[in-house]
Each structure stands twice: as C-alpha cells, then as structure tokens.
C-alpha cells in the first residue's frame, strides 16, 4: 500500500513539473504569436516592400507614410558605429586577460568586466546624456550632441563586456598543447597569439562579436535617450537619427490601440525580433561547431 502511495506521489510531482515547464514555454511561444497577430495587419495597407524600402516615416501625417528605411538604416548605423568600439576593446581585453594578466589580476579584471555587463542600460543612457553628450558637444563643436555618434559610442561601451567575456571563454578553450607546439618551433608569445591561438579560437570570437551585435541592435534606452530621434535617412554620424527600437519606445505610448500606426510599430518589432533571432542562431551554431572541432562535446 505504502509503495503505491509512493508511486502516486512520484507521478504527481512529475506531472506538476511538466505542466509548469510547458506553461512557461507557452508564455514564451505566445510572444511570437502576439507579435505576428498585431503586426501583420499593416501589410494589408502597405505592402511589405514599400514598408521596408519606403524612405519616409510619417506615421502621424494625413495620409500617413509607413516606410521604415530611415529607422532600419539608423539601427544599422549605430550598430556599425558601436562595433568599431566594442570589437577592438572587447577582443583586446580578452587577449589581455588570456595572455598577459597574472592569475590574480585576471580574477579581478574578469569580475570588473562582469560588473560592467550588469550595469543597467538606463544608467548608460543617463551617463551618456548627462556627462558624455555635453562633453562631446564642446570637444567636437557639434550643433547637437544627441546624434548617432554619441549613441554608437555608449552602445559600444555597453557591448564590450559581452564581446570580452565570450571571446575570453573561447580563448581559454584553446588547448595548451597548441601553444606549446608553437613555442617549440621558436615563435614568441605574440606570434603564437596571432598565428595559433586567435585562429584556433576564431569561430568562438566571431560568435562573441555576433552576440554583441545582437545586443546592440535590440538596445532601447540608450538610443532613445542619445540618438536624437529624427526619423530621416542618416548621412553622417553627427546628426540625429531614430533607430527601430527608439521608434517603438517613443511612439507606442501615444498611438491608438488597433490603428495603422500601432500595427506598424508591431511590424517593426517583428523585424527586430527576426534580426536578433538570426544573429543568435548564427552565433549558437558557430560556437557549437567550434566546441566540436576542439573536441569539447556539446
């Protein structure tokens, strides 16, 4: 009797757990459904090509124009700018941690990089708007400090820890024997680093860069506060722009539920979702292949 009671309890726990597990998956899956349900109706009004390739974003004009090319290009621009900051800084720091830092120094520096990663994006945005923007405006003599350049710079600083930690992981997976073989052939530390370690960790490092990009594309508060907000096709780095995330955050509060503008903002979110999804999938498949190549399993 007691034994069957035990069996019953086991089954009960198993089922409760599976229900909880699947309900969390249900939540996560419903995000995609909601995005499509609320976003697709805009394509009855504007065809997909006009939406993505349209040069004018005037959602509140009469008649409204829903062309997100300025927003797409702005997102592309600030992401590119941020990459110029976070790729050298992130990979350089990872190389430093892996090659130069002593054991103790490495431990401290890694914690510092991690802390940098945990600072909320609103703090970066605030730091940008309160300290960096006035500083840059004076330094470079700009008409406005709220521009793609400031946003890129802050986004780049923000993505540096992501690139650094993941690259550092990849570098630390490179087997010691690779390095020893290179030293035995008479190469010095820098040659070994450039010719042996970096190529061996190359795919891990590239997946770090892609994840950094994905973080930058989806970042909202920094671009909302720093990019300036003008929905025009960007020409230089020193004029205000409005990336996709900033458009969603700035305009969602004012639109009427169910209006064309509302659906258009959800359609932007679909595109954003799709871009980050593709980045993450690429990064994951690269790093899986890499781990298999070095014989580390899944």
């Amino acid at each position, binding site marked *: 009797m007691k034994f069957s009671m035990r069996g019953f*309890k*086991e089954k009960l*726990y*198993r089922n409760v*757990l*599976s229900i*909880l*597990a699947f*309900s*969390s*998956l249900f*939540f*996560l899956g*419903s*995000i995609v459904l*909601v*995005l499509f349900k*609320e976003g697709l109706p805009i394509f009855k009004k504007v065809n997909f090509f006009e939406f993505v390739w349209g040069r004018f974003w005037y959602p509140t004009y009469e008649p409204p124009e829903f062309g997100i090319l300025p927003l797409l290009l702005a997102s592309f621009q600030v992401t590119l700018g941020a990459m110029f900051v976070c790729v050298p*800084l992130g*990979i*350089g*720091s990872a190389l*430093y941690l892996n090659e130069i830092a002593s054991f103790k120094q490495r431990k401290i*520096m890694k*914690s*510092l*990089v991690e*802390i*940098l990663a*945990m*600072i*909320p*994006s*609103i*703090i970066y945005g*605030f*730091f940008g708007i*309160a300290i960096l923007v006035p500083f840059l405006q004076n330094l470079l003599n700009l008409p406005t400090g709220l521009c793609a350049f400031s946003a890129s710079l802050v986004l780049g600083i923000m993505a*540096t*820890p992501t690139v650094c930690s993941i690259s550092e992981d990849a570098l630390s997976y490179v087997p010691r024997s690779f390095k020893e073989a290179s030293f035995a052939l008479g190469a010095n*530390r*820098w040659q070994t*680093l450039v010719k042996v370690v970096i190529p061996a960790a190359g795919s891990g490092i590239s997946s770090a860069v892609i994840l950094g990009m*994905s*973080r930058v594309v*989806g970042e*909202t*508060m920094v671009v909302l*506060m720093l990019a300036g907000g003008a929905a025009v096709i960007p020409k230089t780095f020193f004029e205000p722009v409005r990336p996709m*995330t900033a458009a969603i*955050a700035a305009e*969602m509060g004012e639109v009427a539920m169910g209006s064309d503008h509302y659906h258009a903002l*959800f359609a932007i*979110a679909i595109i*954003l*979702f799709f871009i980050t*999804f593709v*980045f*993450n999938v690429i990064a*994951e498949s690269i790093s899986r292949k890499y781990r298999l190549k070095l014989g580390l399993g899944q």
Partner: protein
Amino acid sequence: MKKEFSQKIGFSFISLCMFLTVLFLFSIIFFIVVNGIRVISWEFLTQMPKEAMTAGGIAPAIVGTFYLTLGSIIFSLPLGIACAIYLCEYSPKSYVVNIIRFSINNLAGVPSVVFGLFGLTIFVKYLGFGVSILSGSLTLAILVLPLIISASNEAILAVPQSLREASLSLGATKWQTIKKVVLPTALPGILTGIILSIGRTAGETAPILFTAAVFYLKGYPKSIFSEVMALPYHIYALMTEGLYPDKQVKIAFGCALILLFLVLLFSSVAIYLRNKHKNIYGYGN
C-alpha cells in the same frame, strides 16, 4: 629583433584595450557617485517628490522598483526552476527537448522592448490589468524567465551523475533524489542565477514603459492594480520630460546612484557566491 618589436606593439595595444574598458567602468561609477552623493540624504530616500519633481525625495520610485522586482520574481521563480528541473531530470532526450532548449536560449536574446509590447497587448489590454504593478511584474517575469531557466539548467547539469546514482541505489525515488540530492547541490548555482535576475529586473526600463511606470503619483500605490513609479523610468522621465531640466538632472543623479548601488550590490553578491562555490566537485563551471 623585428619579432620582439611587434610583440611589444601588440602587447601594448591589448593592454590599452583592457585599460580603456576598465577606465569606462570607473568613469561611469565615478561621475555618478560624485554627482549623486550630493543629493542623497535621509529625506531624499524617504520623502515624496515636491514642487513638480524639482525637490523632495524619491521614496515612491524606490518602493515601486521593489514591488516590481518582487512581483516578477514571485512569478518567474517557480516557473523557471520547475522548467529547468523538468528539462534536466524528467524530459526524454528527444528532438522536442532540443527545440525547447533552443527557443529558450534564443528568447534570452530578444530585445526587451519587444517584451514590453507583448506585456502591453496581453496584460494591459487583453487581460485588462491596465497600466499596473501586476502588468509590469508579469512582463518583467517573462523577460527574466529564460535567464532563470538557463542558470538553473546549468547548475542542475553540473551536479555529478554519480550523486544521483548513489541516491537511487539507496532506494530513493526520483523525486526524493531531486529534492534531497540534486537541488541542494545545485542551490548555489540556482541562487546566483536568481540574484542576477533580480539585478537585471530592477534596472530594466523598456518593458515597463507601457506596462507599469508613470512619472508622478500622488502617494504610494494602493494595490497591485495601481500605476507605479520606478527608479529606472524616473531617471528617463527626469531627463526627457518636465520643465526644469537643471534641477531635475540633480535628482536624476541621485536616482542613478541608488539604482547603480542596488544593481552592483546584487551583482557582487552573485559573483561572490559563484566564485565561492565554483568547481566544488572539481568540474563544471
């Protein structure tokens, strides 16, 4: 000779990169602490805002952030841990489980503003919770769910198989093994994940823009269906709205210092816990 020279240049370049990264961290902390400390006082922490946000305290924003964080953890914790236990211990190693893992990993990378849109549609409008603590907490809960699942997942997978086998061979059932052996062993890892999620939730702004936060409230929120002030949103609003930017920026520095302090406190506890319990069994990270 040439190769020594290139090594020197290369090493100085990567040292410079490390230096700049750390410099950025310290300059952010430095500027916020130096400017923020001037406005921090007991009144600042415990009183209501006064004179159109240009004076007084930020107590309702601190309380609001506390409610939102607490609410989101209440929702996401049981779901997340249950999901991790199920995936690691019960689910058969099948194609479906791989898809599930894959989608959880990818949802962790979805931009937070997208979660905000989801919360707006489902919680605020469809379920009719309105702009409220409840809607905001639920939105934040879904945002951190993938983080909690993957942290718990990792912690549970790092428990050596031999411990489970030892317990099962003593006649314990699967659930008893999970409860008495697996979970206690994985606890530090799970805890680290939870603390990190708390830090993340406290600082998130985009998801609560349309689901919970307002710039000004008379008094404290009365129920879970009330609108709420929150520290991160308050910083944003002080910098972009209102009529007295010069006075508001001082208050914003104060808010930023409090938020930074809270988040760094949580993160350093998490880092400490993890380093202390790392490799307790000699393998796993």
